[in-house]
């Protein structure tokens, strides 16, 4: 039932390796601009480390601000990887095929970017090693396993490892194709990476078994990573609006919401950049849109629940936070913008089939979701801290400084640049998966009707 032309293997190879075998004219200028942004950010981080966190807008009640917001945001984006590759693979959703690699790679890079955030936000980032790794045995001090800040690196590093394996295993057949298409040093490098792939039956079987196994094993990670990130807030007894049991599922669904939107937008960009119209087709974007309606609505339910729980308790300090979110400038503006951009604009756009297939409208919807989800984290973290407790004596507002804006902005440049550089070396749309889909989509005759063939991955 898939649309689009049936392409020969040769055509698939030619089109999908285009990003590697020849460099588009825009590639290096774009990478240079992104690199310059990163250079500015590196200088900003350098100044911040050199002079202290005083250069940020953080203050006494608001000890966490933009950096942690951005950390949660990128962890959220990373959830698209498992969602698309593992869950849709196990659910046998056929339309996932071209999206899996991009989603997984986006997962890798957004996780790496996210991990930078809590490190630069600490007071003494050069000592962070002994927070994440229990290396200092001589002193007899191990990391405190009671804190979510130690669960975080464990969860994130587990996720990073399993995602890397996932990408690596899926890449092996594609490396073999690249090995056959290149010469010289590139040929030698791809030969090593292909690990002697010949495409025989045994190798395919092992590759598929490994993929399915990893899909299943990665599922707990899918639930746990963002749950644990949410516990950074949920475990904080002193911040009333954070101390909520609904945070784990709320954050996980929100992560899928923003992550899948980001992947849809990345796919549209890739299609436009590299001319992959035959591979990233309207039906794929359409399917992502339909999935997102469900995810967004689930997320909206949790949003309403979270506010409802907060109001229901009628604790003065929690109500104060809600009052800040709903009525105080500028948080009331951000709150309205957040609800509209995260739910009402995108879902309204996704409801129409024609609009789901319009890439411009789809892009707007996906960007809108991510603007809203960034604001969501900001609105959870900052108003919660501004009016943290009943001691009104120490309330204060938060004005992020230029350093924070630069560093936050650069994370987007970093992920984009890593994605572009990756696409220069590795195929961002899995060749073998697309070919497999092409083989499997041939139609079969049942009685007098022609129906799409169903198939199993075994």
């Amino acid at each position, binding site marked *: 039932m898939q649309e689009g032309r049936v392409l020969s293997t040769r055509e698939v190879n030619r089109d999908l390796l285009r990003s590697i075998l020849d460099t588009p004219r825009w590639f290096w200028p774009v990478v240079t601009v992104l690199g310059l942004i990163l250079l500015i950010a590196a200088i900003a981080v350098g100044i911040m480390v050199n*002079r*202290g*966190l*005083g250069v*940020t807008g*953080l*203050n*006494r*009640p*608001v*000890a*966490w601000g933009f950096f942690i917001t951005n950390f949660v945001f990128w962890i959220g984006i990373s959830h698209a990887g498992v969602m698309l590759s593992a869950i849709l693979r196990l659910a046998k959703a056929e339309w996932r095929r071209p999206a899996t690699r991009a989603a997984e790679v986006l997962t890798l890079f957004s996780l790496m970017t996210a991990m930078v955030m*809590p490190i630069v*936000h*600490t*007071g*003494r*980032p050069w*000592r*962070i090693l*002994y*927070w994440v790794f229990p290396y200092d045995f001589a002193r007899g*001090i191990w*990391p*405190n396993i*009671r*804190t*979510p*800040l*130690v669960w975080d690196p464990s969860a994130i590093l587990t996720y990073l490892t399993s995602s890397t394996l996932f990408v690596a295993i899926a890449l092996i057949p594609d490396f073999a194709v690249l090995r056959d298409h290149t010469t010289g040093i590139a040929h030698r490098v791809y030969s090593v990476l292909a690990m002697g792939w010949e495409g025989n039956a045994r190798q395919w079987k092992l590759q598929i078994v490994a993929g399915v196994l990893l899909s299943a094993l990665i599922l707990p990670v899918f639930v746990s990573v963002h749950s644990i990130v949410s516990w*950074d807030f949920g*475990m*904080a*007894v*002193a*911040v009333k609006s954070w101390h909520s049991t609904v945070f784990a599922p709320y954050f996980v669904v929100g992560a899928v919401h923003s992550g899948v939107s980001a992947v849809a937008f990345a796919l549209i960009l890739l299609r436009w950049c590299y001319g992959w119209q035959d591979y990233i087709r309207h039906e794929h974007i359409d399917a992502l849109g339909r999935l997102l309606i469900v995810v967004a609505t689930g997320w909206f339910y949790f949003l309403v629940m979270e506010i409802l729980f907060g109001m229901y308790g009628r604790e003065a300090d929690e109500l104060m936070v809600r009052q800040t979110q709903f009525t105080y400038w500028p948080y009331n503006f951000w709150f309205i913008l957040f609800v509209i951009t995260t739910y009402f604009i995108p879902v309204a756009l996704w409801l129409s089939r024609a609009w789901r297939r319009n890439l411009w409208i789809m892009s707007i919807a996906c960007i809108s979701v991510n603007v809203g989800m960034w604001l969501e984290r900001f609105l959870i973290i900052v108003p919660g*801290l501004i009016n*943290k*407790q*009943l*001691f*009104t*004596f*120490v309330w*204060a507002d938060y004005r992020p400084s230029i350093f924070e804006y630069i560093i936050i902005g650069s994370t987007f440049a970093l992920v984009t640049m890593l994605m572009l550089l990756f696409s220069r070396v590795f195929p961002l749309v899995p060749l073998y998966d697309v070919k497999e889909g092409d083989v499997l989509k041939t139609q079969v005759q049942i009685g007098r009707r022609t129906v799409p063939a169903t198939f199993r991955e075994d």
Partner: protein
Amino acid sequence: MVTSRIDHKWGMVVDLDRCNGCQACVIACQVENNIPINDKNAFLQNRAYEWIRVERYWEGEYPNIKARFIPVMCQHCQDAPCEPVCPVFATYHNDEGLNVQIYNRCVGTRYCINNCPYQVRFFNYWHPNWPERMQNQLNPDVTVRTRGITEKCTFCIQRIRRGQLQVERRGGGELNDATLKSGNHMPACVQACPTNALTFGDQNDVHSPVQPYFEDVNRYNIHHEKERKTRGYRVLEEMNTRPNVIYLKKVDPNLDSSGGHHG
């Protein structure tokens, strides 16, 4: 010569009836603990350091308006929310009931600051600076904290340690109320308080002036607050952090029964 350790559990009682908001404790604390000088910028940036602060609240309507003062320092909670969230054990509970901060371990995640319901933890956003002429007034017994770490009230642990050294380890008996006072081993804020609103002592010592208050408040928890024999209560008691600081309610014979509540 190491003698056997005496089992202390330090505590403080703050009598709000005696506090007149003079801020002498704040100044004594700044001087004793090498706290950077809070200049105008520190307040404008909301980054002032006040290990002990005197909060002022207005109560009632004109002309029956009253200023209420409450000194807030680290409550040294027995179930401190700041302790379990530190990834590097920079803050932990020692065996004398104190919540202590180890500056060398701190990496500055600021999670403890978020998780402190009393807002008494302070982050060094800038490197602390003193004017040249004030360098010599720094207390040699107290670490000067670098930027990027969290600090807070220690109950002047350097004074307690000095007391233990001078009294207990030299065979002078126990560090009790009398020896604390005679050697100035109580916290600087307690020493400086002109109205004796602050009392410091050992909860385990039956002769200590703080002991009856702790016993009373511990016996009748928040659900039996009405049965307490003393005026003692703990701040944010409903959070069950079990602070080692007890406040005594203000006695106000002229308080209008319809307006406001005891602070």
